[in-house]
């Protein structure tokens, strides 16, 4: 640390203040960054826009007597977790009932989505920053958290890539399938003797040295990142992360083929449980049901819900790779997002279109259990801040940046940017 006049004065002043405290009363230390709470995030993004009426915001109460919702909703089931009377959920989440019972769960409804174009809304939900640019210029909040945590890799993304923003920050380990991710970390075939791997690595290193020695000083300086970035490769290879979906895992999660979407959640689980990264994201596509809505949407959502229950059960069984004595259920937040929701009525193709509200689920340690934040009215429109059904306005809306900021604030308080009007979704966490 370089000392200048400012720093010197600050240090002296702080020291003197502390000593003054000592004269009158016991010194009360400031709050240090806590490491007792969750330090991992497992994100599931449902791409296309999920139907919240089949999920966290089912049609009930006064909504059933309006003409707003398609009549088919009346025939669908809804339920609540045992002992959690506030958490009504719809038909699509029925398989997740046990998951909601086992982990502290909070629903966020009535998120107002200004723009319902897929990429813009996805970018907003991923990053918490609204932008009219379709290129993902702002990094996902998960990317920011992962980078700030200094984890390597900062995060793992399976399926759709996360927005990165400036690529000078550490890009994720991204792959479209678990097989591809496994190959990245273990490019050598299983039957290759480990001696070959070391010989190959050593030859590369030796040739690089010959090459470096031929360069001028300027080029050597340029090549420093190359050399530095190779230092940890052997360490990664030696850890031999096993990301292959075993038959047991495939059976538990109902995986048919490893290149299909139903392999992504278990693959992300392996990335987390193996210690590869504390921040993992996967996306499940197919929720943009502009036709045959119920026939497509319900089975897909049920598949995700079923896998969610398996995931939560696995969290309770799996030790945290970084924190001895704890399970992943003690250390990992599960966040389920989608870019927006669906229209309450059907179009001419029995499908649904984009709707300007959104919902999210946050589960895990420290989450306010049995809590629903935000609400939609009888016209299925987002209403109000903190559940108050007042007329929607910019002062009362809940936005994706509120949610993103709450999550960032929980894990990396130094990154959080408080809403200038003092609204944060702090109540997600107890």
């Amino acid at each position, binding site marked *: 640390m370089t000392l200048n006049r*400012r720093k010197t004065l600050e240090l002296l002043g702080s020291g003197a203040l502390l000593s003054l405290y000592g004269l009158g009363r016991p010194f009360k230390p400031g709050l240090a960054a806590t490491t007792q709470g969750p330090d991992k995030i497992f994100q599931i993004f449902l791409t296309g826009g999920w139907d919240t009426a089949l999920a966290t915001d089912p049609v009930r109460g006064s909504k059933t007597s309006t003409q707003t919702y398609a009549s088919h909703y009346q025939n669908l089931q809804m339920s609540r977790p045992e002992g959690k009377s506030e958490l009504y959920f719809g038909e699509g989440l029925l398989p997740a009932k046990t998951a909601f019972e086992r982990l502290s769960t909070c629903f966020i409804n009535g998120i107002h989505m200004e723009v319902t174009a897929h990429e813009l809304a996805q970018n907003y939900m991923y990053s918490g920053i609204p932008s009219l640019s379709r290129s993902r210029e702002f990094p996902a909040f998960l990317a920011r958290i992962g980078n700030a945590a200094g984890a390597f890799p900062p995060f793992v993304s399976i399926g759709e890539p996360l927005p990165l923003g400036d690529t*000078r920050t550490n890009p994720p380990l991204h792959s479209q399938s678990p097989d591809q991710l496994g190959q990245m970390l273990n490019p050598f075939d299983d039957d290759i003797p480990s001696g070959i791997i070391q010989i190959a690595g050593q030859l590369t290193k030796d040739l690089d040295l010959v090459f470096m020695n031929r360069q001028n000083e300027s080029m050597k300086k340029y090549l420093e990142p190359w050399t*530095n970035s190779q230092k940890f490769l052997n360490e990664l290879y030696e850890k031999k992360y096993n990301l292959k979906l075993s038959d047991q895992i495939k059976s538990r999660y109902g995986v048919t083929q490893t290149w299909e979407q139903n392999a992504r959640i278990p693959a992300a689980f392996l990335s987390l449980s193996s210690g590869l990264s504390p921040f993992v994201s996967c996306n499940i596509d197919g929720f943009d049901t502009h036709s045959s809505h119920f026939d497509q949407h319900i089975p897909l959502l049920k598949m995700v819900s079923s896998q969610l229950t398996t995931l939560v059960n696995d969290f309770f069984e799996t030790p945290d790779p970084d924190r001895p004595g704890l399970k992943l259920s003690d250390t990992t937040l599960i966040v389920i997002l989608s870019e927006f929701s669906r229209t309450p009525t059907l179009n001419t193709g029995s499908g649904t279109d984009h709707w300007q509200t959104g919902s999210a689920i946050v589960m895990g340690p420290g989450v306010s259990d049995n809590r629903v934040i935000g609400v939609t009215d009888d016209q299925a429109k987002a209403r109000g801040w903190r559940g108050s059904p007042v007329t929607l306005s910019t002062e009362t809306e809940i936005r994706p940046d509120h949610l993103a900021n709450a999550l960032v604030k929980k894990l990396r308080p130094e990154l959080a940017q408080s809403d200038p009007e003092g609204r944060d979704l702090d109540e997600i966490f107890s």
Partner: protein
Amino acid sequence: MTKIYQDRFIFFKISTLSLLIFLISSCHVFDDKEESEEAQKATVERIAIKPGPVSQPGSPSTNIDIIPQEGASTGYLLTPEQHSTSLFETLQIKLGYEDELHDRFVDFITEHLAVPLGGVDFRTSSIRDRFPKVQTQLIIRQLAWNAASIVVWRETDPDHPDPVHIFEKCNISEDRPLLPEEQTLSGREKIQAEAREQRWVDQLTEFYWRILVRPPSAEEIALHKQAFLNAISHYHGWPPAGWNVVLFALLSGAEYWNL
């Protein structure tokens, strides 16, 4: 007496506190200029140097992305598109698959691995990253091993559906450098062994011209020989295994990837 002491003590406390508050709040007056310069420098350093691992003890530190100073960068990283083209032009390899539904070839490198290789896809990223990260190295090595394996397999498998022979200077399954025990051979056997080695060197030179556009130096030939012989010793002396290692090193090296 006690009361006087208490009054003076309180007075001392209040006045010292006031002085300190004044001193700290007046810092801004003195150091605006220094702070802006420092902030600028600190900003550059924050971008360049990342904190060490917090939640993964023992994992590699991420403070490795040291950005060279202004004006020091004289090269650039091979782009994913250039690598894809190079693999095809030099080794006749196209990593990808046919998308029959849309009747097009999906290039694995440019469409699936572009961003981790420092490229752009204008969705996840729109700025090329010239400074390789560890993730970049992982992909580079994955691609290098895949490409090397394809070349060797294609050359050695008699039933390969798409045979392409690029080993023009030697027989991949027979020619190799002299083993240590072969140094003491004599007569016809020695001539044959040396001829095999020469063909091996010629093939290595051919690969250097194809991939790096120059011949190998004596030092590099020696390094390749040693690694080749070490590699084939794990495969009962089967030469193609050595070529896998040689091609891997050429395709994952700094010289190939930095222009």
